């Protein structure tokens, strides 16, 4: 819904102010949504001297000007997720979040909170899904995948939903730099290949 009058409480505003807000509204509609940054772009370009990059090499196709950027990003650790963090739903939790990835689908939303990697190399994640239909078939489930070239390629965990909002915690040992995003698929019982995508970044 993007009707200006439906989105904004105009009570008490004079005509000049209404016109000013409407102009911004029009620009927002015209600009469209900002893109979700893929995991590989969550931080500034880094370099081999960066401890994390040493541990997880860059994709071969990355043709960075590494030497030039080396000095720029050596000390970079968790980079504030900007707009992504802006999607984070604030709630009391002990889950330490490094960045948040919003996921959208037809009539459903999800937030994937990603924690810093632990000492063993695992990355804990907390997935909050909202409004996914409850599976009726026994053994049916949803599955979170990392994607590459638009395809679900690496499984990150399975779950079921039984309420309007379901929160699950998962953990994976993968290097996210090798992937472009996440999707959630609907899986039939015993299905091992990716099913239909119901949510995506």
């Amino acid at each position: 819904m993007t009707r200006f009058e439906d989105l904004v409480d105009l009570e008490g505003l004079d005509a000049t102010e209404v016109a000013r807000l409407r102009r911004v509204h029009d620009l927002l509609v015209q600009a469209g949504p900002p893109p979700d940054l893929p995991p590989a772009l969550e931080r500034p370009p880094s370099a081999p001297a960066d401890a994390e990059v040493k541990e997880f090499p860059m994709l071969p196709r990355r043709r960075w000007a590494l030497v030039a950027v080396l000095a720029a990003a050596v000390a970079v650790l968790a980079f504030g997720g900007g707009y992504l963090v802006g999607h984070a739903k604030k709630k009391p939790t002990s889950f330490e979040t490094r960045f948040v990835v919003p996921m959208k689908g037809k009539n459903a939303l999800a937030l994937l909170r990603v924690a810093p990697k632990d000492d063993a190399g695992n990355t804990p994640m907390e997935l909050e899904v909202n409004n996914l239909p409850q599976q009726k078939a026994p053994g049916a489930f949803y599955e979170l995948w990392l994607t590459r070239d638009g395809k679900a390629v690496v499984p990150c965990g399975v779950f079921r939903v039984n309420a309007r909002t379901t929160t699950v915690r998962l953990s994976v040992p993968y290097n996210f730099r090798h992937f472009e995003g996440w999707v959630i698929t609907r899986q039939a019982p015993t299905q091992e290949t990716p099913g239909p995508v119901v949510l995506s970044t």
Partner: protein
Amino acid sequence: MPFVTSDGELIQRAATGDRSAFEDLYQRYARPVFGLALRRLGDRGRAEDAVQETFASIWRSAGSYKPDRGPGAPWLYAVARNAIVDRARARNEIPSEIPEEPGSDPGPGDRAEQSWIAWRVHRALEELPEREREVLALAYWSGLSQSEVAEFLGIPLGTVKTRTRSALAKLSDILGEDVQ
């Protein structure tokens, strides 16, 4: 509230080797650059490469920025445009719709104007408080109604509308003459 440090000041600091200034620029512009590249290249992988090349270019050429010639945003736009054009040329696909100068009058077509508007708006969104940015994103682009946004966020409907109004007012301040 607009960022305390201007883009131009950050570029000048980056030119002296200030890494934190470079990281601040990345935080402000990674999404607008990615959006511009995605629209022009149509491929997420190549757009990612263009973002990385853009910021490598910013780091390399920050010293060429002249504050007396204008603010930082158009300079950054030009650097991004060049990186994207280079990426397209690598495949013999020149995205001619990207204007040489943002907002320059003769010539730019609707798509070029659209690119510049999206660049400015997405950059301005980065300056909003998280809770207001979140409400705008859900209200404008999630397909949810205001009531559904309120339910999703667990806040009253009136608060959603108040935050939307406040966010639009702040965006207007940030965008300045663009909304005149």
